[in-house]
């Protein structure tokens, strides 16, 4: 304890009990600064004003009862030790509070000054210990973060060098390479790529652990992502004579997801599936919807491998889990892939799990939130629970000059999106997420809370901005058009959400028509 007289806050509504406690406090230690509160509200106010060294807390107060009282104190001052004062008949309440983090409890009228002093001293010491443990845990985590980020950065430079020179040899930039040497070089390259993935995983796992993993969700066509992932793994599947199939259920749903992150998850699941499936086996990726979870899309990766033993099923998503049986022709990884996959899916608000019968293969399923235009539109096109008076739709089409490479088309689209975002009023207008299918033209839709005249003004501003953007003008031309959106006729008793859905459908129609015209 410090040299300043320690400040003790006593929160107790019964005057007699309060006086008794104060008497005991005086007996125990004259050098204490005690303040009293007879309600929780005034106690909490005093907690924030002048954090005490300790709180003596009666749980049943005029304005709060039982466990709730302790929870509120904990919320206000997490690091302050609390000793609960309990009545003879509600000891259980006090015991529960101790389970939730109170340092101790005393039964009123059943303690003397020595016991009180001891309880207080220990409470303060224990709390100090907890706090310092917590700080050192945080420091350790931060150090680990920095350490791994530093190490992975430093490892990448020599790795990059190996990668560059091996590919220089393989591409025969330094002269012809005989077949046997080529084979060896390809082995080196495979290992380099494996190492690269591991270094990436190491950093990702630490991030996931410290809650620093970030996702940038937007509206994406799930089918495209699956096709892309399968395309990237096809060569690996063929090399092992595994049949890799994609089975999409009708029109592939649009989901809210970070495409790069979900691609990473899919690649990981496919890589595992191929790794654990013997030659002549098959791996199938399915996407479907389920009635039980109408707001989610399901993706399932099914293999015909040897399956997961029941005792391992609970562990496979944990860090550093590795399959005990070494697979022939395959190297163990770090055991971080599924852990990272689970964290990424969780960040999306989805779930991931595995089902398996030993010897008969496994199915890994993940869920992703379905994209709902209505949900996105609602806050923009309604005001105080009513639909806005006028709405307009502004369409911007970006048309590439000549054949643009996919990468630069994406960049042009990104640039255009940024410009448009700057033109609109975020609270009243909404630039819809990318809903296009693959194709050369890009369509951007803005729902604006304005009438036809206002939409014309907005269109003019957009035209000027696009006109002035040198990067865009070099590679693309554009068209901008605006139209008023006809609003559903207000009917008695028709909920606003239904009207929002109607408008969402209309806009989806426009987007789809725009896509078809291109095709």
């Amino acid at each position: 304890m410090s040299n300043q007289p320690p400040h003790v806050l006593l929160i107790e509504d019964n005057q007699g009990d309060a006086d008794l406690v104060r008497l005991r406090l005086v007996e125990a230690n004259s050098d204490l600064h005690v303040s009293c509160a007879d309600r929780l509200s005034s106690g909490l106010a005093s907690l924030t004003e002048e954090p005490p060294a300790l709180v003596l807390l009666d749980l049943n107060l005029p304005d709060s009862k039982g466990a709730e009282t302790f929870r509120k104190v904990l919320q206000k001052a997490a690091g302050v030790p609390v000793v609960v004062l309990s009545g003879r008949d509600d000891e259980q309440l006090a015991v529960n509070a101790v389970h939730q983090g109170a340092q101790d409890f005393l039964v009123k009228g059943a303690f003397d000054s020595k016991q009180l002093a001891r309880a207080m001293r220990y409470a303060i010491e224990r709390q100090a210990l907890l706090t310092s443990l917590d700080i050192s845990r945080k420091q350790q985590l931060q150090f680990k973060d920095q350490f791994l980020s530093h190490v992975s950065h430093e490892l990448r430079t020599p790795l990059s060098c190996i990668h560059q020179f091996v590919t220089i040899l393989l591409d025969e930039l330094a002269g012809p390479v005989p077949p046997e040497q080529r084979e060896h070089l390809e082995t080196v390259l495979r290992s380099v790529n494996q190492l690269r993935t591991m270094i990436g995983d190491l950093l990702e796992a630490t991030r996931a652990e410290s809650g620093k993993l970030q996702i940038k969700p937007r509206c994406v066509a799930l089918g495209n992502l699956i096709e892309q992932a399968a395309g990237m793994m096809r060569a690996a599947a063929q090399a092992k004579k595994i049949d890799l199939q994609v089975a999409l259920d009708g029109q592939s749903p649009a989901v809210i997801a970070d495409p790069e992150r979900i691609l990473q998850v899919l690649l990981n699941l496919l890589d595992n599936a191929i790794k654990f499936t013997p030659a002549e086996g098959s791996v199938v990726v399915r996407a479907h919807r389920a009635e039980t979870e109408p707001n989610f899309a399901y993706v399932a990766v099914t293999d015909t491998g040897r399956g997961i033993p029941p005792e391992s099923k609970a562990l496979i998503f944990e860090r550093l889990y590795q399959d005990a049986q070494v697979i022939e022709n395959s190297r163990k990884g770090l055991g971080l892939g599924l852990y990272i996959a689970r964290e990424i899916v969780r960040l999306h608000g989805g779930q991931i799990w595995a089902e398996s019968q030993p010897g008969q293969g496994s199915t890994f399923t993940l869920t992703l939130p379905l994209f709902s235009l209505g949900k996105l539109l609602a806050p923009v096109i309604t005001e105080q629970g009513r639909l806005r008076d006028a709405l307009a739709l502004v369409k911007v089409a970006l048309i590439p000059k000549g054949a643009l490479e996919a990468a630069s088309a994406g960049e042009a689209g990104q640039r255009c999106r940024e410009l448009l975002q700057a033109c609109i009023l975020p609270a009243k207008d909404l630039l819809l997420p990318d809903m296009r299918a693959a194709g050369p033209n890009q369509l951007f839709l803005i729902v604006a809370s304005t009438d036809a005249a206002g939409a014309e003004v907005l269109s003019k501003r957009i035209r000027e901005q696009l006109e002035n953007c040198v990067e865009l003008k070099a590679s693309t031309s554009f068209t901008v058009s605006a139209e008023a959106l006809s609003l559903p006729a207000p009917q008695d008793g028709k909920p606003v959400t239904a009207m929002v859905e109607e408008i969402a459908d209309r806009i989806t129609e426009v987007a789809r028509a725009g896509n078809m015209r291109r095709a």
Partner: protein
Amino acid sequence: MTKPRILIVDDDPDLRRGLNLRLRANHYETSYATDGFSAVALAYKERPDLIILDLGLPAGDGFVVLERLQQSANLSCIPVIVLTARDPQSNREKTLKAGASAFFQKPVDNGKLLSAIRTTLAPGWPGTNSSA
């Protein structure tokens, strides 16, 4: 026929040499700088058509170089591709905001880098659309 000229900025000699070889094999002229200060000086002197820039550099890191280039009316039009060992989550957006055209983490896939170079180079270069 003039070839597009690329300024490589990296403090690691082996990486410089490797990238140099790769780019020359794809019909680019190259020059190099090993620190931030000389990168900007060389950009003034040589007016390269494109700069490949590392972030961790002595004497002014990649961000300082990007800032200097952006500040100069003559140099701000030179496209910059960032090629770094640093992690994309905390650096990609930052470099793009600072004026870079593209961001790649080392080790980079050569196909992707070359394709980005082709699309980033101002149009009109012979070979801009040829495959490398």
